[in-house]
């Protein structure tokens, strides 16, 4: 577990706290891009997000290598939810699955940065870190979401 970032100070100067430890580098290293933290099996090469302690196929102890997932994905499926979530997200909001082709991993997440009704399967998106809600201490809880890719780039 050598390359995980130093985010032991989970309350940053802005008072934001990650929704769950170990999902993404936070704070984002200066000059760097946000990344989801996954891992890959040293034996079969399969990649996982979130990280798994063991590859379910190889079950090889100590065989997992940490990776940073590619930021770019393609919407596999999306919906707009019209009821508030028990986690405290206000409706309406869009979410679904994004496939990350570079890592061959499908990730669940909220969609952001556009009209919730505008998302569609096949759309290219990129991962961003954004507040999800405020927790009971009044802190902003930060999570990852996907927003439409604004400019043409290679995925």
């Amino acid at each position, binding site marked *: 577990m050598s390359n995980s970032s130093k985010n032991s100070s989970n309350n940053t100067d802005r008072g934001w706290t990650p929704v769950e430890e170990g*999902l993404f580098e936070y704070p984002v290293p200066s000059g760097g891009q946000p990344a989801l933290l996954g891992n890959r099996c040293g034996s079969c090469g399969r990649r996982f997000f979130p990280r798994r302690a063991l590859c379910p196929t190889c079950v090889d102890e100590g065989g997992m290598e940490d990776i940073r997932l590619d930021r770019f994905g393609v919407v596999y499926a999306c919906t707009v*939810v*019209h009821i508030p979530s*028990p*986690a405290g997200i206000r409706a309406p909001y869009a*979410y679904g699955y994004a496939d990350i082709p570079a890592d061959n*991993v*499908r990730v*669940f997440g909220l969609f952001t940065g556009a009209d919730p009704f505008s998302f569609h*399967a096949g759309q290219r998106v990129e991962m961003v870190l954004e507040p999800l809600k405020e927790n009971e201490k009044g802190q902003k809880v930060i999570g990852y979401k996907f927003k439409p890719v604004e400019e043409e780039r290679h995925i």
Partner: protein
Amino acid sequence: MRDVYLGGAGMTLFGKHPHRSLRDLGREACLEAVRESGVRPGDIQAGYCGNALGPVLQGETGVGQNVFWEIGIHGIPVVNVENACASGSTALREGWMAVAGGFYDLVLIVGVEKSVMPKGTMLNVGAAELETKLGDVFPGYFALTAKKHMEKYGTTREQLARVSVKNHLNGILNPYAQFKKEFTVEEVLNSPTIADPLTLYSCCPNSDGAAAVVLCSEEIARRMDLPRIRVSASVLTTGDYENGADITAWEVEKRAAREAYEMASLGPEDIGVVEVHDAFTICEIIHYEDLGLCPPGEGGRLVEEGATAIGGKIPVNPSGGLLSKGHPVGASGVAQVVEIAMHLRGRAEKRQVEDAKIGLAQIMGGSKEGDTRACTVHILERK
């Protein structure tokens, strides 16, 4: 392994029971099942209880012992089972295995739940799951499967709505159902959107209720004054959680169905009446396909042409299904078998499926990583 037979079966009205406890609801169902079997509670050799939310919502654990003691059952092995929506059907399978394996000759299975939430509050289970923390809600995942099914096969919103229309029509005929109200396709489509394309009347309600059945050896079944029903297949399995899988079908359900048909030496063409887990309209359409009642992608058309209505080629959810009968989570899997038994014994009255000889019950529980944790399929045959 020996044959396992269904004894008596009983259930409460499903719906809102704010003033009744889990043990009170469970007692009613158990007593009916035991009495219909013509046995005494003291004859029961082991008990199995499906309950999913008691520890979370009522702060009650050991629900099975509490319920069974209500009818004087004590001093025997009692097992409490939690397997999300498949809790009751998993309890049923535990009892089935115990009788099939020769450990016991007479066992009682109960499923019981109180999941009606106080006004203005939402059921929040699975709060520890990452997806939930990120904003996932129950109907959302099924909305995603519906969107993919529409995209891949051209399934329409009207076809989805027809599942709800059919099941509500059936519910009117079922004295045990929570809702006894007819809806048109337009009313289903125009009810408030929950998660696009699923509307309020595309989603099952939270419910309170209990259901119970007795399982026994053939020898004991012959002594009962009941039309004989054999439980010819009882299958429980787990998802493979394959990241990146096609979400328009459940591999876990196809596998469970295959195993059940093989165990019973039957095929989908032999089944006369079916109860499936229609927590959301899209689910019933996918279950048609996964159970082999029609080819993949044809589920929408199957309901549209009326094949799954009572009187159709293969009636599905004559009880009204979860959509209309209600969904007391841990009770639903047992209640499905209670319903199948009524049809096979010719006691389903106004909703009776004519000449039903073989029935199938399917339920699954616990979304996980775009897959499902538990899926059960039971096949019952009139003998």
